[in-house]
């Protein structure tokens, strides 16, 4: 373990997902892991590009992989679940089709980029739990988040279809991470049910219903907050609560919860940038 990774932020972390980037960078720094942003990266293509043009979508994602491969032997960290899947899918598509790989490779060569297919794409949740491990994380916790009940929500892309981060049916990695902070992960039945994706804006009549189902289940489980691993899930579940007229449920990133436990202030974990604050017991000065 080199402790150094190539960071692929993706567009959302530069937009409404800014608190995710802020807390991710702070947590990695706190844990002595280095993230180096890939130079002049481009959009991963998300699901939209794949709906319009398959080959170009693969080339779009592959350019980022080729950029990363200029630095030998380092893994890519893609915190946005959507980006994580797009990059992974492109890599697997090229593994499955030498013809597609040849076309993409020759297109990349026009800008002096080489695609070798060596870079590993990883989600920060898995990086923290594998490369550092729960025992090591627990050692660094300075502010145990006792009495905090959290609904663990994985969304889709880090589990399906490839099960890269954890088992698609019974994932536990997020609960294990939350337990290192002494918080209580509640039993949340919809932990990998769809957040609505683009339907919240495209067909709100359907999309908002999907959001409502997830929120109701978290409230039912008496969660103080719902924990996400993806900026689109976070956005959908947070922003549309107003329109749904629901009780205000804080929707926090797993990096924010971990950051707090590691001793970051609410402000440096970006918690003040959420629409609803996490209910925390006042910190007792040591």
């Amino acid at each position, binding site marked *: 373990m080199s402790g150094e990774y190539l960071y692929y932020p993706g567009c959302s972390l530069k937009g*409404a997902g800014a608190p995710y980037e802020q807390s991710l960078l702070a947590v990695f720094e706190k844990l002595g892991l280095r993230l180096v942003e890939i130079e002049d990266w481009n959009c991963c293509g998300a699901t939209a590009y794949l709906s*319009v043009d398959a080959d170009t979508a693969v080339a779009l994602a592959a350019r980022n992989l080729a950029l990363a491969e200029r630095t030998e032997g380092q893994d890519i960290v893609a915190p946005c679940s959507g980006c994580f899947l797009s990059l992974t899918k492109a890599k697997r598509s090229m593994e499955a089709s030498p013809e*597609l790989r040849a076309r993409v490779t020759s297109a990349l060569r026009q800008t002096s980029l080489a695609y070798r297919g060596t870079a590993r794409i990883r989600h920060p949740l898995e990086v923290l739990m594998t490369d550092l491990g729960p025992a090591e994380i627990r050692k660094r916790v300075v502010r145990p988040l006792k009495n905090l009940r959290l609904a663990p929500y994985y969304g889709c892309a880090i589990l399906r279809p490839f099960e890269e981060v954890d088992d698609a049916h019974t994932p536990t990695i997020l609960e294990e991470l939350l337990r290192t902070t002494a918080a209580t992960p509640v039993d949340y039945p919809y932990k990998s049910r769809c957040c609505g994706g683009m339907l919240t804006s495209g*067909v709100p009549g*359907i999309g908002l219903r999907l959001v409502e189902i997830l929120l109701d289940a978290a409230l039912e489980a008496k969660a103080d907050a719902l924990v996400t691993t993806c900026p689109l899930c976070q956005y959908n579940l947070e*922003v549309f609560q107003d329109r749904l007229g629901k009780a205000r449920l804080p929707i926090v990133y797993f990096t924010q919860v971990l950051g707090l436990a590691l001793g970051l202030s609410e402000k440096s974990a970006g918690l003040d940038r959420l629409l609803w604050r996490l209910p925390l017991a006042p910190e007792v000065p040591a």
Partner: protein
Amino acid sequence: MEALRTVKYEEELDPGFAIEVAALPGGEHLWDCIQCGTCSATCPVSLYMDRTPRQIIGLVRAGFRDEVLRSRSIWICTSCYACTVECPARVPITDVMFALKRLAMEDDRYHRSLIPRIEKAFVRMVNANGRLTESRMGMKIALQTRLAGSASLLRVAWRLFRRGRLRPFHTERMRHPKALQTVLRAVKAGPKAREGAV
């Protein structure tokens, strides 16, 4: 008076349609489907579809080209992959849906709704800047759905703005979008790959 006919006759079907879809990336497992309906049962949005995922696959195989391509279902699929991981025959149903979206647009007989418009706008923005500016995309959608004036949307937009999560005058772009455009042009110029997307 001619009676209204709701069934199709054999000669009106397009027998080549299944072969065409089976040749697309994602379509290669089309004939493995056992029509069990596990996909439709797993899908979180199948109850809103005009045709369930199982029906879509059945219709593709039977040659109902127009019904499939004009269907609203393929645009309601959020690609959450719940069906794909449950399918006992290992048909990558989500990828079939992606292939059908592309074919419907190519054929110019897709269900005219906001989703395909958003996806096209997304692609245009990425082609121009190399990245997506979420706030601008959000505004486009809001204007198209006449939500721009809704009190809830304005309230939320204001709060996101105050927290630095919505920057109305910022454009997220690469330093050198040309580097990307060269690559995309080169891929488009080549022949289409007929297999391979996972």
